[in-house]
């Protein structure tokens, strides 16, 4: 069972079965070890990283990773909670899933989450001089078209 495996590889995490996909919530510090296990553990083999996104909860951030296993056809959502709002940091996984490289750059660009050990962490969409991270809830756009 996937649930049992998840409790062994992430003992500190909480598992939520209410949603349509099984979801695992962990702390950002444990993310790297859990990620390696998810990719290579016999019972998981989550080789397809479908979606990487960050959610701003005003007090903290969560990184949301959607996984697919192309062989076992099981799905999983992993939420890594980042408590430090002023300087959010999490380990990169772009050496495990190559697609994460661009997705993490996008999250850095729009949410301002720093991915440690990322090979090329730069702004992706916005210019290098841009101040602030637009997708954060407290971001204020001085030229707001709707308000004008």
């Amino acid at each position, binding site marked *: 069972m996937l649930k049992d495996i998840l409790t062994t590889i992430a003992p500190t995490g909480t598992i939520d079965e*209410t*949603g*349509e*996909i099984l*979801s695992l919530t962990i702390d950002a510090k444990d993310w790297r070890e859990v990620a390696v296990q998810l990719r290579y553990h016999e019972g998981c083999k989550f*080789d*397809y*990283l*479908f*979606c990487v*996104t960050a*959610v*701003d909860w005003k007090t903290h951030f969560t990184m*949301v990773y*959607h996984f697919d296993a*192309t062989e076992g*056809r099981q799905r999983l*959502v992993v939420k890594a909670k980042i408590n430090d709002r002023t300087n959010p940091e999490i380990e990169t996984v772009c050496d495990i*899933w*190559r*697609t994460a*490289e*661009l*997705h993490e750059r*996008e999250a850095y660009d*729009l949410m301002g989450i720093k991915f440690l050990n990322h090979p090329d962490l730069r702004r*992706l*969409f*916005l*210019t*290098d001089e841009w101040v602030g991270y*637009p*997708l954060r809830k407290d971001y204020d756009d001085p030229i707001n078209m*709707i308000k004008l």
Partner: protein
Amino acid sequence: MFEEVGRTETGDLIINIGPQHPATHGVLHLVITLNGETVKKIEPHLGYIHRSIEKMCESLTYRQYIYVTSRMDYLSSHINNHACALVVEKGLQIEVPQRAQYIRVILDELNRIASHLLWWGAIAMDVGAITPFFHAFRERELITDIMEETCGARLTMNFMVPGGTMMDIHPDFVKKTKAFLNFFKSKLPEYHELVTGNVIFKGRLEDVGVLSKEDAISYGTSGPVARASGVSCDVRKLYPYDVYSQINFEEAIETKGDCYARYKVRMKELEESIRIIEQLIDNIPEGEFQAKTKAVLKLPKGEYMTRVETARGDLGVYITSEGGTTPYRIKFRSPGFSNLSALDHMVRGSKIGDMVAIMGTLDLVIPDIDR
């Protein structure tokens, strides 16, 4: 970034393909390091048409946010709208009438044909043939006419609403669609005569930009790109939505992973789309085209993820709801963005001409990448 333009320390040439360049089909900016004609490194610079759709959607209601998504992947706007409608229906547990499901799927497949046709013309144009483009647009024009008659617009239809479709189909819809299918089936052999069998075309695409199965999975590619590498990833088969579970069709899979395999997958998908429409078009059930929904839609607190198969691959819509009328956070996992990440890996070591062919077979739509 602009200091790089010119030459590297090792004497390699750096050239910019884009933002305005015939090969990029939009405002994609690629910085390419060249050694002679051979590509050493390729680096995408994005954001020229980033409209921050995700942020915009946070202030739009669940009825309103659908229209914005037409502007993401404008070539398969119906399918994008479909994904957005599905996620709301899933959250509110709305039962969609059979008629609406049929109409949606038919329109999806017509949209897929139109998108692949444009791609077919564009890839031929990329490798230098001119005539196929006109052939493709002749057929595509008929599809846009059908769309215009039923939805009122040719490209950004906004025809889906949560719970069904906005209007019923036009009285001529069935007749015209059938006429189009017959016409298209008679023209499809010409496509193969003109392009598929052509020795120059084959030479340009075969063994170019090979993406192995492991890499295809690791780079998170989806749609025709992944299927050409042997990854079974058709969402219509894996996680069927609407009436796809009742339809008999095949998933086009090739194993070689080169540009020609991607070409063949898309050509096969054209035929499969015809098959799907043919199965549905005669049996559109009578009844309502829209389920009764509340005037104000409020998604219950929670997280929702829907995946649909667009013409480019696997589009995921991820909504975090706090129970209000607008999404708290919405994320569009666009297929083009993940496919783009594999570009550098595929292009390295090949010629500039190959790069154009690889870009063509990836079928990138830049608004989809930038969102």
